């Protein structure tokens, strides 16, 4: 697994907030150290009508954690007969991660959603469930330093859905181009109160 287990598969996710909208983007590479094995492995899933969960890190844990989360969310909706709000999804992730405090899942969740269908909600977590809530952007993955530099420069508050899409796309594309372990295509989801659009970006395939 090498010295850095979070860089074994590689991959990056970023989420940003705009005016009554959120966008989340993920690269599509599936690799095993320096060997690329697949080009259609997004690290983001839409878990319910108003929430996305991105899970960069060790991809076996990405898959397992998505499955655990889906199971818990389905049980919640059966018992409560209502949808889980984004904040509650985040708290559930926190709890699932801390359960494994001394043998953690090697994922760093990035959660984006619209509270009440209108208010942007962003949350990031470390691998043992420490949360960070913010109003601008959250990100994780092997390209995190590159994404931070671009996001700090390009993001501004109250962007509409189209501008937010452009900003998050430029951040993702330019950041993964400087990272050998992320890239091979990018997928961007934009959620507004009316709809969700998903677009694949034309990216360098290396």
């Amino acid at each position, binding site marked *: 697994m090498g010295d850095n287990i979070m860089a074994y598969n590689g991959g990056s996710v970023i989420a940003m907030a705009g005016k009554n909208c959120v966008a989340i983007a993920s690269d599509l590479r599936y690799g095993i150290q320096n060997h690329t094995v697949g080009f259609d492995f997004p690290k983001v899933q839409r878990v319910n009508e108003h929430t996305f969960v991105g899970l960069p890190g060790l991809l076996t844990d990405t898959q397992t954690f998505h499955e655990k989360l889906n199971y818990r969310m389905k049980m919640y909706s059966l018992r409560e007969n209502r949808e889980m709000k984004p904040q509650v999804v985040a708290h559930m992730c926190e709890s699932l991660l801390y359960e494994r405090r001394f043998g953690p899942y090697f994922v760093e969740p990035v959660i984006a959603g619209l509270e009440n269908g209108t208010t942007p909600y962003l949350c990031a977590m470390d691998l043992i469930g420490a949360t960070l809530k913010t109003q601008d952007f959250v990100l994780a993955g092997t390209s995190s*330093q*590159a994404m*931070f*530099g*671009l996001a*700090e*420069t*390009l993001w501004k508050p109250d962007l509409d859905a189209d501008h937010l899409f452009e900003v998050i*796309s*430029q951040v993702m*594309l*330019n*950041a993964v*181009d*400087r990272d050998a372990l992320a890239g091979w295509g990018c997928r961007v989801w934009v959620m507004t109160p009316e709809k969700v659009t998903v677009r694949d970006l034309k990216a360098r395939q290396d």
Partner: protein
Amino acid sequence: MEVLTAHGPKQVGFSPYQDNGGTALAVSGKDFVVIASDTRISTGYSIHTRDGNKITQLTEKCVIASSGMQADIKTLFKVLQMRMKAFEQQHRRHMPTPAIAQMLGNTLYYKRFFPYYTFNILAGLNEEGEGCVYSYDAVGSFQRVPVSCTGSGHELIQPVLDNQIDRAHQKGLGHWDLSELEAVELVKDAFSSACERDIYTGDHVDIAVINKTGIHWDKFDLKFD
């Protein structure tokens, strides 16, 4: 290294190197260059000074900026200035920028097996008046480039430069021929962004603009946190 103590042999470590942090950046234009570096000197989580000096003028057309270990930076600058004085005595003229570039590469390679822990950027005007930027590794390999950044903030800033100057991933647009003012604004934005997320970058930025009228220095404030 192992030492013998009263309780038996034990391992102690001494590293001759330290990373004092910081970021340096240079952008070249057709007939000017802008070069800048922050002024924070730190070790670990402590700041030694907010008014350090990582950038220095070598001739009236050439400036060098470095990041890495402050002791090696200071010594390297002294050694360079010494060798430049010798050149001026021997050749009866100031050293042109490409010659300084080669000399810096050689100076670094002399210490190939105990390197200067310095990551350098050299910026200046060549004899034709064009802006040049040279980027180095610690042991002297170098290349002339249009734009370069180095130091603790380089991972944050480099993609911003790819996106804003080379205009990568911006359809239909090619390399941007910036004016001096635009270059300075971009450098200030890049440092502001790096300062937000990199703990070793902050306090102030020393900026030098080199053009045919000379070298103009400016100091730009960053956050102190």
